[in-house]
Each structure stands twice: as structure tokens, then as C-alpha cells.
């Protein structure tokens, strides 16, 4: 097997080409007629909103998912049932935001993990292992930065990322997928990452570069493909496009009439957040919320949306600043918050919303047991009545209180999470991604219930990565970028372009 890199004159050859990819997850059409190609010696950026289908496409290219139809060509050959091992052998490697490194092992051990050089007596040849590692790091220009014998846990995030890239080179990767590599890096490490990526392009690798930061694409990439709602919107030469056009391609869609925004009576301020700082994630946030109002939190992944949501029910370590609810410091634990009527409908329903192996009834009544308790004993009759009422109200299907929640569809699971808090008669509800991964019908129903809450004077915070949802539902939208509040847009000024520009820090 040759260890030399691809010669630079191979530029222009298609390393990878996928066409008309279709992928369904249950009833959800994740990818629809998606086409994408990658030449040797190019950096091809892949952009799109959360849920646009980027990860699904990447998983198809790396063999983790099999598409329902469509063709995958790699190096000119067609592959129908690509699996991860095959993809790896074909030189496809991915560097994700979460590294696959063993922190207690050395750099050299990590890099050669899949293919340890074997020497005398079938033992690992430590000398050649270090040498191989050194050569790989040299290709990245990092040989003076990283010692092959250093333990990975002692490296900075930027250095660990280089080790991940070196690991990819160790399997002779010609197609390198980088999933938001800049999101985890401090800005001083960015230049080094970019020069490494450019160097790999010189060597003839094809690089798929995923990023939410539009300006990086113009700095780095040769071509860009925009995905939206599982479809390819366009593939363009970066030289032929501009930031505003890209943003429009990412978000521009007909707004469906599924947001029954009703005018509710906006009342007094019930929540004030002053100079809120949370170690390392959220900086100097100021906003307030009135009763009957829906305030949206917009921002890309990692912008601090979820952290702010969690801090409102006492789930974050507040470094400085204060949260005032009804004139008093906000409670510092979810149980205390629930007593005051502040509830969080969390982003990941399977991890934070439901005790999955328990019944619908158990989950619905969990925060509301007080309502059914008399002299310390639960009245199962009262419980049953209340549970049946909420099941009917939210039209949860099947309407069987004793069904285990793991057997429900995503939309119905989410309804159970929403329902358990509706039963608690909250005063302030924080929705974090309330409609992620659920079908359109269930989405619309959840919006109806959000509106019903505000009609009753409940204050609502709606954190979402879906701009149409925010624009359809909110009175005001706060836009976050890397933990800072970078803008507040009022309903009369709502536009997806404006919010996306704020959220991606595009200046124009």
C-alpha cells in the first residue's frame, strides 16, 4: 500500500458524487433528491439551517446510513450498500465536533490505533509508531507543536483537533469531512486550522467543510452547497456568490400558514434577566418577559440558547448577574421553580423530558402529584381523571394512559412532555426546541397550545433553531451569537434574513 499523498495534478477529478439521494426516517422525509459532489483538491462547503439534512447527508457519505434511493459514486465506482468500514477503506474520514480520542493514551497511540505498526515478536514497534506519527504531524505543519508521546488529555482543543485530522491522514483519507471544526476553536487557533485545511487541498484531498459561519466559507471554500429542508437549493462557486445570497438560500421558504398567532393581552413584566453571565457559555445577557408575551431566543447551535433556558429554572451555575421573577430572585432549583409555576419543556425529550420506560400516566402526573394527594395518599381516581383530560385535550395517540412512553411516536412523546407541564398550571413556560423532529401536524397542535397559554396570561420563552417557527409565534426575538445577545427584533421588523444575519454575525 502506498503511503504517499495524492499528486496535486489530480485536481478536478471527482472523488465523490452522490445524486438523487432519498432518505426517510419513519414518516419524515429527511433528504429529497439531494445531489452533491466533491473534486480532488477542493474545499466544498456544506451549509444549511439545523435540520436541513447536513448530518444525514454526511452519515450517508460515511456509510452510517443507507439511502432509500439514489447513487453514490466514489472514485468513479458506484456503491450501493456502503458501510462504515468500506467507506473508511475508500479513504473517507470525518472529524466531528466531538472527538473520538482516548484521552489517557498518547498522541502516537491514538493516531495509530487502528493500524499499530508491528515489529519483532508481534509486539508493537514503538519507534516506528512515533516516526509515523511525526511524519503525519509534519504534513500538518504541527510537528513542532505536538509531541507524539504526549498524552492527548494534556493537549488543547485545537491540538486535539489536529490529532483527529492526523488520524484521518493515517488511513490515507482522500475525502475529509469536517463538521463545524471552527465552532469549538478559540479564534487564535482558527488561522492554523485554515492553513492545515488549505495544505490538505494542495495535497489533493477533497474537503467537505460544514460551518454555520458564513464568512469562513468565503475565506476558505471553493464551492458551496446549500441544503434546506432536506433538499439541495444550489451549488455555487464561492467566487460567484455573496453572503446575503447564501443566507437567503438557507432560509428563504414560503412561510406556511401554521402559526395561528393571536393577539394576547401583554401585561406586566414578570421576568427580568440582568447582566447574566454563565461561565464560558453566556455573557452579559439582559432581557425581560411580560405576561402573555412570547419572546423568542434565536441563535445557532452553541449560541447559548439552551443554557439560558436552563438557567431560568436554576440549572446553570450563574457566574454573575441576576434573574428576577415577580420581583424576587428566581429559584435555584427546578423543584423550587416548579412551585412558583416556572417550567422548562426541555430540548431533548428522551433525555430530559420523559422517564421512557414508564407509562404515559406516570410521566404526565409526575410533576403534578400534589394535585392528586390527600392526606399523603394519591387518589388514583383523581389522577386518572386528570390524565385522561389532558390526553383528550392534547389528542395524544393512542389515548391509553398505561402505554409505555417509549412506544409513542416522537410527536406524541412531545405532547406528553408538554402535557405534563400544562397540567401544572404554569405561569412562565420555557420551550426549548418544542417541535424538533416531530411531524407538521403535531407541530401545529403544539403551537395552538402555546397560544392558549399566552391567552391565559402565561409568559412564554421560545428557544428554537427554526426561524419560521420563531417568526410565526413570537412577539419579540432575541438573537444570540456565541453566548452574547447581538440583537432584538420586534414583530413588525421580523424577517428570516435579518435574524439569520444577526445569528451568523454577517455584517452588511
Amino acid at each position, binding site marked *: 500500500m502506498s503511503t504517499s499523498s495524492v499528486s496535486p495534478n489530480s485536481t478536478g477529478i471527482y472523488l465523490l458524487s452522490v445524486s438523487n439521494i432519498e432518505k426517510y426516517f419513519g414518516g419524515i422525509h429527511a433528504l429529497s433528491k439531494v445531489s452533491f459532489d466533491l473534486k480532488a483538491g477542493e474545499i466544498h462547503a456544506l451549509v444549511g439551517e439545523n435540520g436541513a439534512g447536513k448530518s444525514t447527508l454526511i452519515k450517508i457519505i460515511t456509510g452510517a446510513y443507507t439511502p432509500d434511493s439514489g447513487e453514490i459514486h466514489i472514485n468513479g465506482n458506484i456503491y450501493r450498500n456502503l458501510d462504515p468500514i468500506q467507506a473508511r477503506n475508500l479513504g473517507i474520514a470525518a472529524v466531528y465536533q466531538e472527538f473520538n480520542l482516548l484521552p489517557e493514551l498518547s498522541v502516537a497511540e491514538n493516531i495509530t490505533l487502528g493500524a499499530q505498526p508491528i515489529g519483532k515478536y508481534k509486539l508493537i514497534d514503538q519507534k516506528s509508531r512515533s516516526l509515523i506519527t511525526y511524519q503525519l504531524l509534519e504534513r500538518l505543519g504541527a510537528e513542532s507543536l505536538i509531541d507524539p508521546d504526549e498524552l492527548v488529555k494534556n493537549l488543547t482543543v485545537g491540538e486535539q483537533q489536529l490529532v483527529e485530522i492526523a488520524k484521518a491522514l493515517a488511513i490515507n483519507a482522500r475525502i475529509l469531512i469536517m463538521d463545524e471544526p471552527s465552532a469549538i476553536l478559540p479564534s487564535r487557533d482558527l488561522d492554523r486550522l485554515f492553513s492545515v485545511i488549505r495544505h490538505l487541498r494542495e495535497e489533493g484531498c477533497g474537503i467537505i467543510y460544514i460551518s454555520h459561519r458564513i464568512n469562513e466559507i468565503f475565506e476558505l471554500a471553493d464551492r458551496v452547497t446549500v441544503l434546506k429542508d432536506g433538499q439541495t437549493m444550489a451549488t455555487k462557486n464561492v467566487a460567484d456568490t455573496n453572503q446575503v445570497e447564501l443566507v437567503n438560500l438557507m432560509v428563504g421558504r414560503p412561510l406556511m400558514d401554521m402559526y395561528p398567532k393571536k393577539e394576547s393581552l401583554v401585561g406586566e413584566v414578570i421576568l427580568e434577566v440582568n447582566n447574566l453571565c454563565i461561565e464560558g457559555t453566556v455573557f452579559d445577557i439582559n432581557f425581560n418577559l411580560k405576561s402573555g408575551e412570547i419572546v423568542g431566543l434565536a441563535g445557532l447551535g452553541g449560541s447559548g440558547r439552551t443554557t439560558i433556558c436552563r438557567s431560568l*429554572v436554576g*440549572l446553570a451555575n450563574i457566574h454573575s448577574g441576576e434573574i428576577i421573577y415577580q420581583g424576587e430572585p428566581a429559584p435555584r*432549583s*427546578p*423543584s423550587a*421553580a*416548579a*412551585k412558583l409555576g416556572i417550567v*422548562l419543556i*426541555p430540548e431533548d425529550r428522551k*433525555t*430530559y*423530558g*420523559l*422517564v*421512557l*420506560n*414508564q407509562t404515559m400516566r*406516570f410521566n404526565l*402526573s*409526575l*410533576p403534578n*402529584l*400534589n394535585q392528586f*394527594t390527600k392526606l*399523603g*395518599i*394519591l387518589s*388514583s381516581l383523581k389522577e386518572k381523571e386528570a390524565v385522561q383530560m389532558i390526553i383528550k385535550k392534547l389528542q395524544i395517540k*393512542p389515548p*391509553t394512559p*398505561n*402505554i409505555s412512553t417509549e412506544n409513542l411516536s416522537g410527536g406524541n412523546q412531545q405532547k406528553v412532555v408538554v402535557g*405534563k407541564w400544562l397540567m401544572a398550571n404554569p405561569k412562565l413556560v420555557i420551550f426549548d426546541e418544542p417541535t424538533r423532529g416531530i411531524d407538521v401536524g403535531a407541530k401545529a397542535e403544539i403551537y395552538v397550545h402555546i397560544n392558549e397559554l399566552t391567552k391565559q396570561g402565561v409568559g412564554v420563552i421560545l428557544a428554537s433553531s427554526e426561524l419560521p417557527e420563531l417568526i410565526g409565534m413570537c412577539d419579540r426575538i432575541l438573537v444570540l451569537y456565541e453566548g452574547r445577545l447581538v440583537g432584538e427584533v420586534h414583530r413588525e421588523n421580523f424577517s428570516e434574513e435579518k435574524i439569520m444575519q444577526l445569528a451568523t454575525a454577517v455584517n452588511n
Partner: protein
Amino acid sequence: MVMSLLNTRDTTNSKTRSVRLLRNNASIILIYTIILIVIGIAFFVNENFRSPSNLINILRQSIILGLIAIGQSMIALTGGLDMSVAQVARIVGLTVASIFAISGSNPTLIMPLIILGLLIGGTIGLLNGILVTRTHANPFIITLGIASILRGVNLAISSTPIRGIPKPYLHIYDYKIGIVPLNVLVMILVWILVYIFTTRTRNGRALFAVGGSERVARLSGINYNKTLIMAYIICSIFAAMTGLFLLSRTGVGDPSAAEGMDFQSIVAVALGGISLYGGKGSIIGTMGGVLLLATLSNVFNLLQVNIYYQQLFLGLIVLITVAAYKSPRSS
């Protein structure tokens, strides 16, 4: 269309309900079926087994394990295991016996010392609970550490049996109301109370929630630390009660009292279908586990099966049941 779908669901509802009832309680049905089979076989094989006094005896023998196992059930529901229960029972027995001995078998001390014993149990439970919630370490390891400390203390108190227990205390274990022993009644009462606690109170529900998912429980307004600490206190108090009963039964402060009870209680809990991963199961299942173990031990003794084989058998049961209720992640 939708309406017709709903209608068909309604007509099949009663059928699916009974199917679900069977499926949800499969482990309980299984354990009681096994008990019936074991009893059935023993009934024909050994005529001594049949006598009413032997059957009452099985119930009496199950008291000691029953009390400990019911506490262990609560810990198992939270997703933990309490490895200190046997040592708690022992330290209570030894402490009470020592004070009786020093006081010259003074019968007026019976009530105060029973209360003292329960307090000792509660305190150790509190300690277990605080350590588990503060360190977030595996409860198995924490309670194993506590058990090791208690074992040391127990050896320091006495390595030989302590005599001098007042006569009236010895009668507690033997006292009968009609034909039914008092302690059997106590156990039945305890089972009923704990059943109500786990199924019909907020704190009982909280046990399941905490074991099912710590994060969901916290976000649902359940006080996670309080729930866990409460579970460990209750578990240790039951262990202390076991120690007090054992002292009454043996009549001496026994430095080897409750030997192996920590393991056996886990066997009973696992047999009864409480998931050792937490969050699922029923006290009724544990009761089945206890009864099965007591019946088996009785049958083994009647058939004069070697104690070594009994031990081996116990180990096999654990491995088989844990494999049967394997981790939800692996499926």
C-alpha cells in the same frame, strides 16, 4: 377515516388491556408461578413439607430476609444497591445486646433500646444517603465502604456471642396471636404499608422517577437528593428491625448475625423483577422473591441438600435473573 380507526381501537381496547396487564406484570406472574410449582413438587416429594407448622415456619423464616429485602427494593428502584444492610442489622443487634449485658439484663430497657436500635439504623442510612448524593459515586461502592467500616466496628464490639438478653425480649419473636406468630403479622403489615407507600404516595412515585432518569426527575420538580436520602434511611431502618428480630430469635448478640443477607436481599429483589438498573418493578415481586427463597431453603433443608450446593444455586439464580432482565441499552 380517522374516526373509523379510533372506533376499531375502542373495540379492541379491552383485549389489548388484558394483554398489557399480563405483559406488564410478567415477572410477578412468573415468580408466583415458580413458587407454586416448587410448593407443588415439595408437597408430593416430602410429607414433612405438608404440615401446617412447616408452612407457618416458611413464613417465619422469610421475615428476616423479608424485612431486609423490602428496604433493598427501595434502593433498587432508585437504581442503586445497599451493600451495608447485613452489617447494619448486626451492629444494631450487637449494640443492643451489649447494653443489655452491661445493665444486667434490665427488662425496662427493652423499649428504649429498640428505639436506639432503629435510630442507629436511621443514622447509618442518612450517612449512606448523604454520601451517595454528594459524591455521585456508585452506591454499590459507597455502601460497600460503609459495610466494611461497620464490620470493623462490629468486630471491635465483640467477636464472641453476647449473653444477658432479658427474657421478655426473647418472647417478641415467639409471641403468637392464636396460631399466627406476631412477627408474621408485623411483616404482613409492613408489606402493606410499603406497598401503599410505593404505589400511592408522592415520595413513592419519586423513587421510580429518580431510578428511571435522574435528569427527568429533577426537571419534573422531584427533589432528587431528598428522595435518595429518604430511601437509604428507610432501607437501613428495616435492616435495623431485622437486627432486633434476629436478636430476639437467637437470644444472644451474634457477631455473625445476618451473614450473607446483603447478597440474598439482592437475589430476592432481582428475582421479583425489580430492575437492577432502577425505575421499574414492584414490591409484590420482591415478596415473591423472598417467599421463593424461603421455600427453597426449607425444601433444601428437608431434603438435606448440602449448604454448599445451596450457595451455588443462589449464585446461579442471580446470574439467570440478571441476564433475563438485561439492560435496556443492550436491546
